């Protein structure tokens, strides 16, 4: 592209929040669940119930400059988001990934009701007002039947371009109890995005509960690797060859090394996994996309060139994580040396083609 032409951006991870649950979410909840919310609150499947399991590095996990002119919560004011983010970075497609969306609540019916309300809210407050923004179908994912119903409800609705869940599930995601989700995604022709964090009730690392937020942050790549391994080994991609999986905010440099290791061990134990017909790396290459925030930042950016090539430029999606504190600026990330076509694919075309918009 000509040097004077400003890059067009797809941001595949934007976090909207309601200014107030009572004002913006309650209109989409039945009285029963409004009462439940006020009486019992939102009980998650995790320890440390008073808040997140680990204190965030910044208040609201947000950029300090992301509060609106009247102190609005980060990500809660569309007009401010337009000026502060969408216009400023020339974002043509912004994918909304609501957190605190009812996902991971212990009460499965409340989780389903709250996710449905969040999905209605995305249309009412965001996508109907701003064509650049597209919604995510938030799933009460620990109950796959209720999740499939929510996917069916939103199928064909242009306000939504993906189904959405969190990475720390209570069992590895390839487990059969989650299969109705994959079936519904394929039926509805929606990619499944799996975002960092979650409330599986299990420790955030493979080795138990660590002491610090920093360890929580790097734990996502472990969770993502377990998730990918489980989905491949349980034969999910063999059963749903059209399923598209997006790993959001959990790193990407680990993916090539994981695929090499899986290929070798799979070959050595072939008869244990007769339903995994192809080398695991092939399923990963065919079915998985990765958003890149928080970007890998090696001392020499040249190190990333191989990583991008091993994964494939067409499988990496730019994201900022706005308004959160670990935001990536599209003009400042240490992207490896790339052709104009590769940049164009990474910043916008991959997302357009994956989402079909």
């Amino acid at each position, binding site marked *: 592209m000509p040097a004077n032409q400003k890059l067009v951006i797809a941001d595949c991870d934007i976090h909207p929040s309601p200014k107030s649950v009572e004002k913006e979410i309650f209109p989409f909840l039945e009285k029963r669940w409004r009462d439940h919310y006020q009486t019992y609150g939102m009980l998650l499947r995790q320890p440390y119930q008073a808040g997140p399991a680990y204190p965030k590095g*910044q208040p609201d996990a947000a950029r*300090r*400059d992301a509060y609106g002119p009247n102190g609005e919560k980060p990500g809660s004011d569309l007009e401010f988001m337009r000026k502060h983010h969408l216009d400023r970075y020339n974002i043509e497609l912004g994918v909304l990934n609501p957190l605190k969306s009812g996902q991971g609540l212990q009460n499965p019916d409340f989780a389903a009701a709250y996710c449905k309300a969040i999905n209605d809210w995305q249309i009412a407050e965001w996508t109907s007002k701003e064509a650049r923004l597209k919604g995510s179908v938030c799933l009460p994912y620990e109950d796959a039947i209720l999740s499939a119903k929510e996917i069916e409800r939103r199928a064909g609705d242009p306000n939504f371009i993906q189904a959405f869940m969190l990475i720390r599930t209570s069992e590895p995601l390839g487990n059969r109890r989650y299969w109705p989700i994959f079936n519904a995604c394929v039926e509805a022709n929606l990619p499944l995005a799996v975002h960092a964090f979650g409330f599986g009730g299990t420790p955030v690392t493979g080795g138990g509960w660590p002491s610090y937020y920093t360890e929580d942050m790097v734990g996502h790549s472990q969770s993502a690797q377990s998730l990918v391994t489980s989905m491949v080994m349980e034969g999910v991609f063999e059963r749903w060859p059209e399923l598209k999986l997006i790993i959001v905010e959990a790193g990407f440099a680990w993916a090539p090394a994981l695929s090499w290791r899986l290929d070798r061990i799979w070959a050595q134990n072939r008869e244990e996994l007769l339903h995994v017909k192809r080398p695991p790396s092939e399923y990963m290459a065919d079915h998985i996309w990765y958003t890149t925030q928080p970007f890998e930042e090696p001392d020499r950016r040249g190190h990333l060139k191989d990583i991008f090539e091993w994964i494939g430029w067409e499988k990496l999606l730019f994201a900022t994580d706005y308004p959160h504190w670990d*935001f*990536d*600026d599209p003009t*400042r990330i240490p992207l490896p040396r790339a052709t104009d076509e590769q940049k164009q694919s990474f910043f916008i075309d991959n997302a357009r083609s994956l989402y079909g918009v």
Partner: protein
Amino acid sequence: MAKHIAAKVMDIPPGERLSVEVQGRKIAIFNVAGEYFGLRDACPHMGGLLSEGVVIGLVEADRPGCYSYSRGGEIVRCPWHGWEFDLRTGKSRFDPNRWKTHSYDIEVGDVQQLEVETVDVTTEGEFVIVNL
């Protein structure tokens, strides 16, 4: 080195900061108990505005379990990724020789000090001056 008026003294009380543009350069000026420091108003990492950061002190641990707090009000933390910069030098705390932001020489003076610059002086008083 030319002197440029950046702000009125009253615009930056102690403990406060102001983002100004001087000769096309965005500069964050901090008043630390009457001392003024100027840093390029962009984090060298990804460009977060340091003028929007929280000003803190330096918490250090010489060894595990032994903490000290010093230099209150002399460190700014980037509003995005939390990188810490020394207001006196512009150097980052975690890798001071590799990661730093430009530090400007700031002084307080009156208009008579300025040789060539024409300014619209509507208020008597002292000014914060950047040496470029």
